[in-house]
Structure formats: structure tokens, C-alpha cells
């Protein structure tokens, strides 16, 4: 049908019809262009004078003003982050006659490095010709004096004072405090999406990590504006009106910088973490992660080489070990595991088992070894915690089963973020059958449950999680959310931070708390306690639990010899503790990576030293800050 119709088409008539329509269209096109051109003539010729005047009058520009960032204080009012005026050498390319020669002369005069010159070139291409570009970021007094004397030789170049974030305690507090750094493209994009771009119109830096990142909104403040009159080249002549920026709010942290520094000093060059937290409300008094780095590098503009160095370091200084480090908890979780056993009635306080120095699953040849190779003999739940008997907990874990353990442990906060007020936090891993299936698509093996009994296998925790889990036991159920912020200061008014709690752990028999707590006290003060040496003669009562985590599994008949094996395969030493024993006001978590020795010989003495400091004299400052 269709084909027949097309054969009787009159191609000539069709073309003629189309041609007529094209002519009509072209007439319309020409007419429209006529109208457009007529309008352009009207604007550009007839009304030219009027528009030229309006263009020349077009001289009022709105310039945004950056607010001053809020100051951060420690719990005792010492400044942890402030804004310091820094002198920088700035160039307005448009006002410089021969830019290349001028820059070359300045480079020779002030000893400006090649890196800085390259950065200047990059920035110059980005900015408009009549806007200031930084040539030298931080002038020292000497450079400022040299330039000031010869300023008249360099029109278009001037020294400007800007505020730069400064962290007086440097690397002591980096992981808690974080830092500010230049707003990069990703930040700019995010601000745009959140509708905050206008508020950051004049701001150069933004909080990236830690407190600086988490409380960016409070610290930043609100942008101000000034209306300035500009000349024909866009240079401002005078200010017509000003709406001052609203400075950011000041923050007061729970951190005690003296305690923080003491903790850092105790860890020394050992990699690891120390957390001190008030179990009553989750206030974080100290949070150390070693190694650290100087946040001022970022605030002042880190060089590529410096940043590479941090990124590539095998010691991972950028990692906040206190909240992101996933460590096997080792024996530190035996108190909680004992409570689970008692609650599930898998054991009672009278249950005793014989420890020959190893444990075997019935019908399997493999021997799970106790750290005491000749065995603890007859042990009950109390002695098993005090002496840190492995065999008892191998047996208990196997009887409980992984999913029961996992269900209970989630209540203590394992496998969940603690909710501390910094962004860098890991949930670590509380394994279960379902987790292993999802993660590796493999079944769970009974042998793995045995290892769970001593906090090994897939189980990892962050030191902050351990602090919370210890606080739950100490509080007999209440589970605080760790908090770094104590209060916000806004125009003289102190707004206390909200201290939250999570779902408490409720026991069928609350007496089970006391089983764990009394055993933990005996760890410190009992004749066989694993931390008795470290805490001998302490002027305060306390409780705790040691832990020694294997980083590398040891073959069946191999002897562990710390001196003989590579440093990175040495054990992690751990200690969790609290004091005073009757009414605890602090829990402490020590994690020391790859050390010679274990929880009792390395971590417990560290805890002792810090606790001594805490209780001896709150006011003493190890102030090495400028």
C-alpha cells in the first residue's frame, strides 16, 4: 500500500511546495534578524550615552568579609587553637609594570623558594588581574623588614596581615582537634550543595578533621559584607557601608591538655593509643594516637612533599588509632565475656575447670595454648579473670557459641561506632556467623569461636570502644557516648554540650557486675593479679584487665620469642583500667603496638604512671608550649 502511494507521489509538486515554505521561513528569519538588529541599534547607538553613563556609574561592589574562627580551649581554659596574624607578601599583577622582573627581584631579595614561585604562578592564573595573589605566605620579621625598607621600589606589591589558624600544642592533640586547611574543590562543591557557599565567600580555610571538622558550623561564624566604591578598573576607593561578620563560637573541650601531654610522653615513641574517659558522662579527658604530626603544617598550607611523607609513612601517622585503629581486644574483654557466661548460665561462680596449659575441641587434634604453658590448674571465673587464664575462656566461648557472644557484645558497643564527636571513627568488627557469610561467604568454624574467647580471630575493637565497654561494666550497665566537647561559648554565654547515653546493658542478675568488678580489682591488687607489679603501692584503689594480642599466629610447636622476630610482628600490649575502685571517675585504655612484653609488663605500668599523674596533681602542666 505504502509503496504504491509513494510511486504516485508528485516529486515536482512536493519540491515546489517545500520551496515556497522555505522562502516564507527565510523571509521570517530576515525579518527577525531585522528586529534584533534594530533593537541592538537602539541600545548601542540611540541610547548609547545613557548606557555608557550607567556603565561608568556601575561602581558599587559588595565585598564579603570573613568571620573570625572560634577559639578552642581545654577543660582548664588553656588555648588549643587560635588565630594568629601572619604577614604575607601579596601582588596585584595589574599594578605591576614588569611582573616577571619584579618577581625575580623579589625572589632574590627575600630568598623565595622555587616551590613558592611555582605556587604563585599557579594562583596568579586563577585570579583576576586586579586581585591580590600571595607571593610569599609567611614573612618572618627579617623578610618583612627588608621589604618594608624598599617597598617604594615595588608598586603593586604589599605586605598584608591575615589570620592563620595556630595550634600551640602542635602534634600533641592533632587527632582530637583535627585541623583547618585550604578549601579545596570538593569542599567548595559540598558547600554549594548545602547552600553554604555564600557564607564562605571570604573564607579561605575549613575544618577538615577532628573537632575542627565536626564543629565547623559552630566555629565558622557568619560572613559579613562591605559595600565599596570601585573605580573603572575595579579597585576599591572607599567603603560605603559595612555589615560586620559574626565571629564563630568558641569551644571548650573536656580534654585536659596536661593529661594529654603526659599520656603522649608515656607512650613515647611507641605506636599506639591512650584514652582517658569519665565513665559517668563520657567526657574524654585525653585521647592520644601515636605517631602524630603537626597540624600547623595543614593550617599554613602543607607542601606536597610533607603530605607525601605522612601518607607513605609505614607508621600511618594520619590514622587516629584511638577511634580508627582496629585492634584484637585480646584478654581485655574477659570480664565482659565472664558476665555473658554467667548471664547465659553457661557457668556459675562455682564452675571450675582444669587447665593443663592448653585446650582442645573434642575430636580435634589442634591444641589452643594458654599463655601459661604449664597451666593454671583448677580455675573458676574469678581466678580466670585475675590470672587471665586462656583455657577457661576457650571453653566458655565454645560453649556460648559465636552468635550469643556477638549479640551480647554489641550491647557493650563492640562493632558499632561509639558516636564520639569527631568524624574519623571506625565501627571495627564484632564477628558473627552472618557477618562472616556476608564478608567472606564462608561458614563459621568452631575453632574461631575458641579464639574469640581470648579476643582474637576476626574480633577487632577501637581503643575508644574498649573505653566505653569498660565504662559499661564500671557503671553497671549505663553506656555513655564519648564526648570531646564540654561547652560552646557564644557571646559570653556558656552552652553546655549534651552528654548522651546509649541503650544500657541490663542483667538478669545485677550481682554479676560485681563478679567482674571484684576480679578486675584483684587483677591490680590480688597476689596473682597480672597487673599487681605495676600497681604495687598505688595511693588509690583501682581495677583493670591486661591483654596481650598476637599480631601473628604462632605455629603449633613454635615458641614465641619477642627478640627474635621482626618488630612489626611483636605483640600488642593492652590495658583497660578504672579508678578509684569504689566510685570510678576515670577509665583508661592503653594500646601499645608491637612491644617487647605484654599487657602486664608494658601497658599496665603506663596506666599506672598516667593514673598517678591524674590523681596526684590535677593542676600541674607539662607546658612545653610556646
Amino acid at each position: 500500500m505504502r509503496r504504491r502511494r509513494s510511486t504516485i507521489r508528485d516529486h515536482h509538486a512536493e519540491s515546489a511546495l517545500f520551496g515556497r515554505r522555505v522562502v516564507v521561513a527565510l523571509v521570517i528569519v530576515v525579518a527577525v534578524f531585522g528586529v534584533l538588529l534594530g533593537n541592538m541599534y537602539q541600545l548601542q547607538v540611540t541610547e548609547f550615552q545613557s548606557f555608557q553613563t550607567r556603565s561608568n556609574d556601575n561602581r558599587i561592589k559588595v565585598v564579603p568579609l570573613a568571620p573570625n574562627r572560634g577559639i578552642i580551649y581545654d577543660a582548664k581554659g588553656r588555648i588549643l587553637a587560635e588565630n594568629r596574624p601572619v604577614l604575607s607578601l601579596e601582588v596585584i599583577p595589574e599594578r605591576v609594570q614588569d611582573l616577571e622582573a619584579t618577581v625575580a627581584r623579589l625572589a632574590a631579595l627575600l630568598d623565595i623558594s622555587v616551590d613558592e614561585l611555582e605556587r604563585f604562578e599557579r594562583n596568579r592564573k586563577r585570579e583576576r588581574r586586579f586581585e591580590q595573589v600571595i607571593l610569599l605566605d609567611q614573612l618572618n620579621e627579617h623578610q618583612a623588614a627588608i621589604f618594608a625598607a624598599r617597598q617604594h621600589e615595588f608598586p603593586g606589591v604589599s605586605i598584608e596581615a591575615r589570620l592563620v589558624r595556630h595550634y600551640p600544642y602542635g602534634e600533641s592533640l592533632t587527632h582530637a582537634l583535627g585541623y583547618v586547611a585550604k578549601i579545596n574543590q570538593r569542599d567548595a562543591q559540598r558547600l554549594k550543595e548545602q547552600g553554604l557557599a555564600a557564607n564562605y565567600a571570604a573564607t579561605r580555610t575549613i575544618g577538615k578533621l577532628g573537632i575542627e571538622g565536626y564543629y565547623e558550623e559552630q566555629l565558622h561564624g557568619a560572613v559579613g559584607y562591605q559595600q565599596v566604591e570601585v573605580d573603572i578598573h575595579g579597585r576599591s576607593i572607599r567603603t560605603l557601608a559595612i555589615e560586620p561578620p559574626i565571629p564563630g563560637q568558641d569551644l571548650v573541650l573536656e580534654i585536659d591538655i596536661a593529661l594529654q601531654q603526659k599520656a603522649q610522653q608515656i607512650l613515647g615513641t611507641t605506636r599506639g593509643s591512650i584514652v582517658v574517659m569519665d565513665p559517668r558522662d563520657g567526657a574524654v579527658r585525653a585521647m592520644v594516637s601515636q605517631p602524630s604530626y603537626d597540624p600547623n603544617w595543614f593550617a599554613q598550607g602543607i607542601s606536597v612533599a610533607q603530605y607525601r611523607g605522612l601518607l607513605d609513612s609505614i607508621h600511618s601517622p594520619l590514622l587516629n588509632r584511638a577511634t580508627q585503629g582496629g585492634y584484637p581486644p585480646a584478654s581485655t574483654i574477659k570480664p565482659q565475656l565472664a558476665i555473658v557466661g554467667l548471664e547465659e548460665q553457661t557457668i556459675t561462680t562455682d564452675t571450675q575447670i582444669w587447665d593443663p596449659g592448653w585446650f582442645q575441641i573434642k575430636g580435634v587434634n589442634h591444641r589452643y595454648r594458654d599463655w601459661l604453658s604449664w597451666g593454671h590448674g583448677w580455675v573458676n571465673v574469678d581466678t580466670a579473670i585475675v590470672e587471665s587464664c586462656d583455657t577457661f575462656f576457650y571453653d566458655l566461648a565454645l560453649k556460648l557459641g559465636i552468635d550469643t557472644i556477638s549479640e551480647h557484645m554489641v550491647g557493650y558497643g563492640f562493632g558499632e561506632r561509639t558516636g564520639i564527636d569527631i568524624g574519623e571513627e571506625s565501627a571495627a568488627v564484632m564477628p558473627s556467623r552472618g557477618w562472616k557469610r556476608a564478608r567472606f561467604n564462608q561458614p563459621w568454624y568452631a575453632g574461631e569461636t575458641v579464639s574469640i574467647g581470648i579476643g582474637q580471630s576476626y574480633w577487632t575493637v577501637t581503643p575508644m570502644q574498649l573505653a566505653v565497654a569498660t565504662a559499661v561494666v564500671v557503671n553497671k550497665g549505663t553506656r555513655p557516648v564519648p564526648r570531646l566537647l564540654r561547652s560552646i561559648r557564644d557571646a559570653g554565654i556558656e552552652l553546655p554540650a549534651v552528654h548522651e547515653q546509649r541503650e544500657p546493658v541490663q542483667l538478669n542478675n545485677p550481682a554479676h557486675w560485681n563478679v567482674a568488678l571484684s576480679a578486675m580489682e584483684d587483677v591490680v591488687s590480688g597476689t596473682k593479679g597480672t597487673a599487681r607489679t605495676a600497681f604495687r603501692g598505688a595511693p588509690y584503689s583501682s581495677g583493670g584487665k591486661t591483654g596481650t594480642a598476637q599480631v601473628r599466629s604462632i605455629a603449633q610447636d613454635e615458641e614465641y620469642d619477642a627478640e627474635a622476630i621482626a618488630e612489626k610482628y611483636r605483640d600488642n600490649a593492652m590495658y583497660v583500667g578504672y579508678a578509684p575502685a569504689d566510685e570510678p571517675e576515670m577509665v583508661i585504655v592503653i594500646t601499645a603496638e608491637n612491644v617487647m612484653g605484654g599487657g602486664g609488663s608494658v601497658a599496665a605500668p603506663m596506666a599506672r604512671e598516667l593514673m598517678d599523674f591524674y590523681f596526684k596533681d590535677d593542676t600541674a602542666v607539662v607546658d612545653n608550649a610556646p
Partner: protein
Amino acid sequence: MHPDQQRTSILQRLHMDAPLLIALLITAVVSIVTVYSASGEDLGMTQRQAIRVGAAFFAMFVIAQIPLDSVQRWSLPLFSVGIVLLLAVLLVGESSKGAQRWLDLGVITIQPSELMKLAVPMAVAWFISEQGLPPTLRRLAAAFILLLIPVLMIAKQPDLGTSLLIACSGIFVLFLAGMSWKLITFFAVAIGSFTPILWIFLMRDYQRQRVLTFLDPERDPLGAGYQIIQSKIAIGSGGIEGKGWLQGTQSQLEFLPERHTDFIFSVFSEEFGLVGVIGLFLLYGFIIFRGMIIAMRAQRVYQKLLAGSLTLTFFIYVMVNVGMVSGLLPVVGVPLPLISYGGTSMVTLLAGFGLLMAIATNRRLIHA
């Protein structure tokens, strides 16, 4: 080798129409020069624009090589794919600036409405050319429905500007096909009476705002009217000779918003004056004229209708953009074709010119 074939130039064998190609290349140069100035001498942006121009010309070149029979055969399938994608956008599209236009396919995000700028005139031209000209009333009615589906879907995103442009591209096919003047008058009246419905039911607040501001820019000189006032100051203060390249104070001092995208014509007018504007109009006029010649010379009805519609749609772009920045039309967010900073519209436009090139050279090869 056939003796006649030797006479066909290299350009023709590459399926390029020399006059059109030269005019397009000149426009591309104008674009890069103006973007450099409008971006505040930003070399990065200028470089990106140059790369986009290159990519768009490559797209044009590739499309010009496609045999026209295939183009004709694939008109309806392409249109159908476009409809499916538009449906997907409405269901799962990415939202930006309060409108869903993008579809995230994982690897790339695409804007199906851009595809429809070509697919709609192709489909309508194919549908009309299945019968002889002029089309019967029934066929016209069917063509309208075919056209209305994508137009309404795009209007729903909402992207009124694009939906109206696409409607135009389809209507141009029908007009060129010889739709009777009686019908044209009828539709003109119908659209006139449709305007109140559009205003009350279909337009969003921001669209109404644009129209109100257009009617009286001084009503809100610091808000929505600011753009138009600043744009007119820019154009007017350019005078006959212009302020010179990179010398436009309105644009260089950042009084003019969106100066490298929708308002680039204002920058051009400020810096090159009426003389430059006349030059640009001549360039655009030449491209349109050449496009219509290609349409006239095309052998088949489908090719005639498609070439004519693409050319007239290009003209509408110029008209709407120049009209809006000079205060004759409301600001609807249409870029100045081939000049404004931005990749998507550039690629679509030059893809359209690729079809024109194919149509132009197809005819010659038959004659040769």
C-alpha cells in the same frame, strides 16, 4: 576510478559542506575568543571550551559519515529510545537546580532531552515523509500527538525552555511539509488562548518570576531584574565600536552574571560593539541560509524536512538568546548557539550540523 569522481573534492568525500564548515569554524573561533574574555581570562576554562569545540566537531564529522538511509530508518527507533530514557529520568533522574534532567547510567550521566532535540525532528520528518506532501489532516493530527509526548515529558522535568524548543523543531517540520495556512492560523489562536492555562497550571514560580521580571526589569533591580538591566547596560555601553576585547567593564568587573554561559552575547556586544554584532549576525545568517539551501537541494522529502527543521531550530536558538539578553524576550536559559561556554548543547548542535553535512554531500555524490 570514475573520471567524475576525481572532480569531487576531498571535503566532499569526507561528507563536509565547505561553506557551512568554514562558517562553523569561524563561529568556533569567536566562541573561544569570547569565552576567554568572559571567563576573566581563565585559561583553564578557555582550554576546556576549546576541547569541547574539538569534541563537538568530531561528533559532527562522525555523524556526517552515517548513510542517510540508515538515519531515516533509525528515526523512529531512536525516538522510542528517547521516550524510554525520558520516562526513566522522570522516575529515577538526578535532580539539579530543582529539575530532573539527568539520567545516571553508572558510567555516564546523560540528558535525554538533548537526544530528543535531534530525535524529534527526525521522527516527525520520517512520519510525514511516509506519505506525500502536503500531509493529510489525519497524518498531521497523528504527528502532533507524536510530538506532544516528548514535549510534555520534558516540560514535566521541568524544563520549559527545552520543551518549547523541541516543540518548535517538530512544528517546523509540519510547516515545511506544507501544513495549510488555515490550520496554522487556527493553532496560533489556540496557543494564544492557551497562555493563561500555561501561566496558572504549568509554569513554576521561578518561570513566572522570569516573565514578570521580563515585563518590567526595574521592578526588582537587585534581584531577578538585575541580570537584564546589567546585560542591557553591557550591550548599550558597547556602542558602535565596542570597548575592545578584554576591556568590557561590565563583564570584567563581574557586574554581569552568567557572563560566560547564557549572557555571553552581552559580553560580545560590550567588547565588539554594533560592528561586531552585525558581523556575528551575518555569520549566523549565512549558516541559516546555507542550511536552507541544503534543504532545498536535498533529494528526498525526509532529508528536506529534517535539514529545514534543524536549520530553523538553530535560528530559534539565536533569536531566543539574543532576544532575552537584549530585553526583547524573557530570560529562559537558552545558550547562544555555538558560542556559549558549555559542552552538552555544543555537541547536540554540531551533531545536528553533522546530519546537515550528510544531507548536503549525499546529494552531490548522487549527481557525481
